[in-house]
């Protein structure tokens, strides 16, 4: 379970998170939506222990990701970064099997390669791509590799940061469907941040809208279109008129 209680985070005078509260039950897929610059990436970095909140409490399966036990919980976490964040200097299979080639989960290289190829095939990539370098793949393929890396070590929790950014609508839907399949198949707890409503409808069990540093609305996916929340209605409609200020 993911439990976020009253989390505040500021960068100088810029107060990004102003008391975020969020709970994600085991095996559920939560999608956090919100306009650009509202702190979606910051909350994700706090969840991963990459940024320390000024105050508040974050627990991933009962462990604080900013504590000394950080590595214990990170070994059970998968993360899909917005740009893929694949390591340029390593071939695809070593990117996917990174955990198995280094550190505590280290196994021999041929075993690691076998797992990497298995995961690549699971996300629809052929074995022949295993020895390519990330720069030799298209954006959509890189996203698939990043997805393969995120699921490689059988995580209990997976985070997805803008999984469809920069992809064409068809490839975006392919990635959305893959994410949904994997979340159901692996039974993991998932948190996705996005501003793509199509992704929300494909991936989410539950949705939360982050605006002005707090969660303005949260609920089940089937409540999304019925909600009277004015922030949510404006966001779904993509309207320039409403409580979410727009620069024109």
């Amino acid at each position, binding site marked *: 379970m993911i439990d976020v209680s009253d989390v505040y985070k500021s960068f100088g005078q810029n107060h990004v998170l102003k008391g975020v509260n969020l709970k994600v039950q085991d095996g559920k897929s939560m999608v956090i939506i919100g306009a650009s610059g509202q702190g979606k990436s910051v909350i994700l970095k706090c969840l991963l222990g990459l940024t320390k909140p000024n105050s508040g409490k974050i627990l991933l399966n009962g462990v604080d990701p900013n504590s000394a036990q950080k590595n214990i919980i990170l070994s059970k976490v998968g993360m899909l970064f917005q740009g893929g964040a694949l390591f340029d200097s390593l071939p695809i299979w070593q990117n996917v099997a990174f955990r198995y080639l280094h*550190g505590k989960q280290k196994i021999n290289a041929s075993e690691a390669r076998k797992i990497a190829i298995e995961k690549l095939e699971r996300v629809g990539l052929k074995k022949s791509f295993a020895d390519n370098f990330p720069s030799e793949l298209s954006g959509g393929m890189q996203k698939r590799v990043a997805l393969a890396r995120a699921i490689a070590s059988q995580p209990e929790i997976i985070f997805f940061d803008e999984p469809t950014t920069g992809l064409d609508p068809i490839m975006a839907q392919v990635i959305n469907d893959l994410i949904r399949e994997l979340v159901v198949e692996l039974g993991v707890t998932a948190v996705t941040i996005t501003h793509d409503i199509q992704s929300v409808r494909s991936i989410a069990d539950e949705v939360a809208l982050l605006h002005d540093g707090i969660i303005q609305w949260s609920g089940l996916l089937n409540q999304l279109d019925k909600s009277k929340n004015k922030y949510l209605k404006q966001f779904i409609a993509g309207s320039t008129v409403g409580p979410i200020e727009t620069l024109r």
Partner: protein
Amino acid sequence: MIGFTAQTGRIFLTFCSFIGELIIFCIRVFANILIPPFFMRAFFSSVVQIGWLSLPVVGITSFFTGGALALQIYAGGARFNAEEVVPSIVAIGMVRELGPVLGGLMVAARVASSIAAEIGTMKVTEQIDALTTLSTDPIKYLVVPRLVAAILTVPLLVGVGDSIGILGGYVIGVTRLEFNNTIYLINSINYLELWDILSGIIKGAVFGSIIALMGCFFGIRCEKGARGVGQATKSAVVSASVLILAANYFLTEAFFSS
């Protein structure tokens, strides 16, 4: 007046914060050198990048510097009939000062910039965050292998540079200045002491650590965008070069002041 004081204070505080950040970074890096896991593949790759691939630039620079040094000492020595000191002064000058300093500066230009650009790009493309989420400490994976490789290979580069520099002096001495080749060689070797060579090698190790630390430090604190990477690269080369020259003075003072 208040504005000026505030501005000066702000600059001073920023500088203090920067120094503090650098000291904490260095402590973290050196504290991690002997603690497993060790990333041997990253280490050997760094040995090739820092040591092997820097050989041509260090060799060519040293050869021409040795030649120019021979010409200068010959011209200067001729003013008081001391042309015969050319071989020994070239050898001592290369081994004690020019070999380590020029080698260090050339490696700083080539390696500190490349380390800062590579790590900086990794930072802005979230690869460093990805390392952390894969339970791998970026300091251990990115910094320690480069630091150890630089500490081990830069002294070797200095040794090779010293030899090629002396060879440059020899070639010019024999072909342009009409020295007898046997006498030139004997004079080069006879006046050279073991400590001359060792001091240069120690300087090489210190300069190697400066190069790797500056490259990694500015790469890791790189700010977003192409401008951030450019700034990190520039800062790494400038600071490594300045620190090498400053460290060279203090090491020379420590080794030879008596």
